[in-house]
């Protein structure tokens, strides 16, 4: 569980976070959504301690982050997996070495055991035959997936993903969402995902916070989001007319006014 209260952060004169609070429970996919530049990445980096917030409190499973000693922080970080928006793969290492790096650093396993684990996680992100490739030889989406593989290789207790599926095709994107959801439930991870992908929001959003210009404007689950009265949120999520229609359909369906048949054959009969 990660809890944070009243986080403020500015860069120079620019206020990026203006008092954000929330509680992220374990075993849930916690989503941070919002337009580009609303401060999602900055919030995430404050939570993991890469940025020092100007004020506010952050605690991990009840322990205050700012009161932790350097050693304690290091221990905590070994339980954190993070995917960066730009993947942040080590470009002097192959894919295999990248993913094996945390294992080399923090485990005493034999090379065979480590290799087995690497291939296991690579398989989970649906990548094959890339072990010996360098990050420069991969596409953006492939880098993302290797980044996820590296983030989960040590079975973290806290998983942070900054836009895990931007730059992925819808199918791979779904696969990544499923994977994140699965491991979150399976290992009771506290998962935090930054996204503006509508599919992910609807599929995985157990708990969603909507950021607007550094403030939390809305909070709820994917079940609640379609009933939200917040105009800005509605415009942000259901941006296209197609999605507006889909939303209306879903609302009617939930109210029992229509019977939604997914099966086209039946509809066209």
């Amino acid at each position, binding site marked *: 569980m990660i809890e944070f209260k009243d986080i403020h952060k500015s860069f120079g004169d620019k206020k990026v976070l203006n008092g954000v609070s929330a509680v992220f429970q374990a075993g849930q996919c916690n989503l941070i959504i919002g337009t580009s530049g609303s401060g999602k990445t900055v919030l995430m*980096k404050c939570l*993991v301690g*890469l940025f020092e917030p100007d004020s506010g409190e952050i605690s991990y499973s009840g322990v205050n982050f700012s009161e932790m000693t350097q050693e304690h*922080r*290091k*221990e*905590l*970080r*070994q339980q*954190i997996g*993070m995917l*960066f928006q*730009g993947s*942040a*793969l*080590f*470009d002097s290492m192959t894919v295999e070495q990248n993913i094996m*790096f*945390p294992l*080399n*650093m*923090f485990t005493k396993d034999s090379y065979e055991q480590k290799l087995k684990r690497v291939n296991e996680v690579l398989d989970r992100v649906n990548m094959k035959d890339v072990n010996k490739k360098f990050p420069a030889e991969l596409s953006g989406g492939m880098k993302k997936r290797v980044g996820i593989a590296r983030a989960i290789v040590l079975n973290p207790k806290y998983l942070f993903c900054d836009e895990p599926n931007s730059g992925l095709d819808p199918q791979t994107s779904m696969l990544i969402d499923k994977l994140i959801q699965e491991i979150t439930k399976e290992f009771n991870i506290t998962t935090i995902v930054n996204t503006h992908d509508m599919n992910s929001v609807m599929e995985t959003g157990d708990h969603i916070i909507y950021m607007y210009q550094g403030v939390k404007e809305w909070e709820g689950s994917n079940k609640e989001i379609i009933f939200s009265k917040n105009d800005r949120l509605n415009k942000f999520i259901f941006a296209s007319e197609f999605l507006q229609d889909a939303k209306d359909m879903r609302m009617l369906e939930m109210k029992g006014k229509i019977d939604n048949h997914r099966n086209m054959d039946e509809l066209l009969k």
Partner: protein
Amino acid sequence: MKIFTEFGRYLLMLKGMFSKPENMKMYWKEFMHQCSEIGIGSLGIVVIISVFMGAVSALQTAYQLVSPFIPKSTIAQIVRDTVILEFAPTLVCIVLAGVVGSKIASELGNMRVSEQIDALEIMGINTKTYLILPKIAASMLTIPMLVIIAGVLGMWGGRFAGVMSGILSKQTFDKGLLQFFKPYNVFFALVKAYTFAFIISSIPAYYGYYVKGGALEIGRSSTKSVVVSCVAILFADYILAQLLLAS
């Protein structure tokens, strides 16, 4: 004022380097890797410049010593002393500031800008210890070795040029090399080599580690780190000469 802030941050970076390694084996591997990058990687250029500077200093000394009263062996003596005192440690290190310094600064700068340093930090690794310490340690080990090699090759280059151009014979040169030899000069050269090795590695590491921005800033900080290290070398050179030679 800014220079004091920067210097303070530089000292803090050096202090932050000393922490317990998470996994000794990985740190050792990184150290060895840096030794080969820095030491073996710049061996070629060191060999070339030291042979040539020795050769040139032999020819120029001969050109300036026109008096028939001065024995030819003096040429070798002068070549030996300039090579040991100044050319091998200072000139070689100035060149290494360009070769090694820009490499360290751009490598760390790239890692900073592409968030690789943050990624290491998140894994619970002390990035100052893991990334900077091995580079400085490897420089401190390999650069004095390179300076010794440069000294030997410089004298050999002087001998080769002197003999080839018929200025003096091998025997005269060798005799000159042993004339009035002061072992203290070698000690002085090594003190310089260690000092410069530290400058060459720590200043670029500072500029690279704290880079902000993108590719352009990486280039800029790497240039700046080379300029600052060169100035620092010359300054340290002067101070050391004052401390250890003037009496």
